[in-house]
């Protein structure tokens, strides 16, 4: 009996701090956000108006669609660039080179996203380094503005989230025994068929986790997109910011937040369903 009481006291001793943290700083605020999204900001009455405003306004819809499509396209590009990188690091490089390259890939990610976006601004702005180089090389005689294009936003997004694709893929490639690759060759496979039949299927979980993380990061991005895209970025998170901070319309902003969250959760769930992956197992 005493033992049992002691056990319960121990459990609650660690459970309560956890519940306070996750409850006060995560669960209740999100419930609050959800509730706010159904309230009219002038009359305080319950309404679906904040959502219908989203669906009836072509501007909000277009920005949302644009953000979604960009996030997906950028995720695919990131995968295309990261898979070979992860493959070369895990399967080709020797031990020393592996750790050197890995360090060089990881270190920039310790640096603030803001600084990384700034570094691209230094390169790409009108009076920036790339523009200067082109003039020195004689390719152009005037300043060229590379910022504020769609392509710039994509480069910036790939740059800020690439590592989150490389690491999960590396983890799953690490668990692929080299003898399996060898066996594929011995059975008459060539590079591409081995890639297709053995290596890529094996790294499926890593690709899944990486793509999911990168997609979420892209969708929720704010700094990189607004700095590199400027006024033309038209990213959905900007709408949330504007409603909350510029227009003081918490309710509309809350509805946008809920829409963003629902969309990302839905897409992640769908992609897990389609590829029959289990997120917990993949992590």
């Amino acid at each position, binding site marked *: 009996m005493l033992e049992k009481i002691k056990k319960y006291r121990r459990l609650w001793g660690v459970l309560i701090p956890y519940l306070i*943290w996750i409850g006060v700083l995560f669960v209740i605020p999100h419930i609050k956000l959800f509730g706010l999204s159904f309230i009219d900001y002038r009359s305080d009455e319950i309404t679906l108006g904040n959502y219908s405003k989203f669906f009836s306004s072509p501007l909000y819809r277009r920005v949302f669609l644009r953000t979604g499509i960009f996030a997906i396209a950028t995720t695919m590009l990131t995968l295309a660039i990261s898979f070979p990188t992860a493959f070369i690091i895990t399967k080709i490089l020797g031990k020393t080179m592996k750790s050197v390259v890995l360090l060089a890939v990881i270190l920039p990610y310790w640096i*603030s996203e803001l600084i990384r976006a700034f570094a691209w601004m230094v390169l790409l702005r009108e009076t920036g380094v790339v523009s200067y180089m082109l003039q020195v090389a004689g390719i152009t005689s005037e300043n060229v503005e590379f910022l504020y294009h769609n392509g710039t936003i994509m480069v910036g997004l790939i740059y800020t989230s690439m590592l989150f694709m490389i690491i999960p893929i590396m983890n799953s490639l690490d668990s692929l025994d080299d003898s399996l690759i060898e066996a594929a060759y011995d059975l008459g496979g060539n590079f591409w068929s081995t890639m297709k039949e053995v290596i890529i299927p094996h790294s499926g979980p890593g690709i899944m986790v990486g793509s999911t993380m990168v997609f979420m990061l892209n969708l929720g991005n*704010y700094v990189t997109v607004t700095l590199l895209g400027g006024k033309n970025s038209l990213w959905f*998170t900007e709408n949330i910011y504007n409603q909350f901070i510029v227009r003081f319309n918490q309710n509309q902003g809350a509805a946008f937040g809920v829409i*963003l969250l629902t969309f990302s959760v839905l897409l992640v769930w769908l992609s897990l369903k389609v590829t029959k992956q289990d997120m917990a197992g993949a992590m």
Partner: protein
Amino acid sequence: MFTTDNKLKSFSYWFYYGYIVLILLFTAGPLIVTFILAFNSNESASFPWQGFTLDWFSSSTPDRVGLFDDVRMMSAVGTSLKVATVVTIISILLGVNNAFLFVREKFVGKEFMYMLMLGPLVVPGVVLGTSILSFTHSIANSLDSAMGFGAGSFLRPGFWLVVFGQVSFVATTTTLVITARLRKFDISLEEAAMDLGTTQAQAIRLITLRFLMPAVIGAAIVAFLFSFENFNTTYFLSGADNSTTVPIILYSRLRFGITPQINAVSVLLMVSTGILGGLAALFQKSDD
């Protein structure tokens, strides 16, 4: 080396190395250029090279304000350090607590609670920031009307709100790191200590917490960095000057244009995060 390696290498040895060089150029190139330009005398923060200078770090002539002579920038550095220290301490305490919860305890809904714990890291920072803002806003309003104006002011955008907002997701990170370490702990060591006459509390303090130390230090460094560099969540929760962190002030200045002083700030951040990141990696290595 094994034969597979050679077969794959024969595909195109040069292609592999060329590719890696390009990737490294992509990841490190922009940062290296930013680094170099912090020491260029050219006021436009671009090339051509006009000579080496440390003016962007320290100089207080009217047209050249070095970062160390910029009062507002230095106060932002101070704020960031303060915020990061408080956030790290709270997040480490929560991380250790949560590790014991998820490794040692059995309770209904444990798996669900574990998934919930990952939530703050998964939800976009903008959404996390706005949800905490709207929640604390309503509480502050009720406090004000119940206890008089100003009672809820600690829940208004400012220092403590930034701290709370950052703890929400930084504690997830520390929990993950410390939980992973605690899972490796052989509980019989603790039992042995208790057989030798210690209480459980003593055993945990003397044996288990000591075992957790590398992970705790590693997690603390990561927490400090996460806090110091956070923008998305902080942006919504910072108010007056006492909560303007370095990323916030940098962002507001970047909207007006680029000065070499920002390059200098970048250099400072790169060097300090480089050192801290290296240390964290070292501690995580000793973790295995």
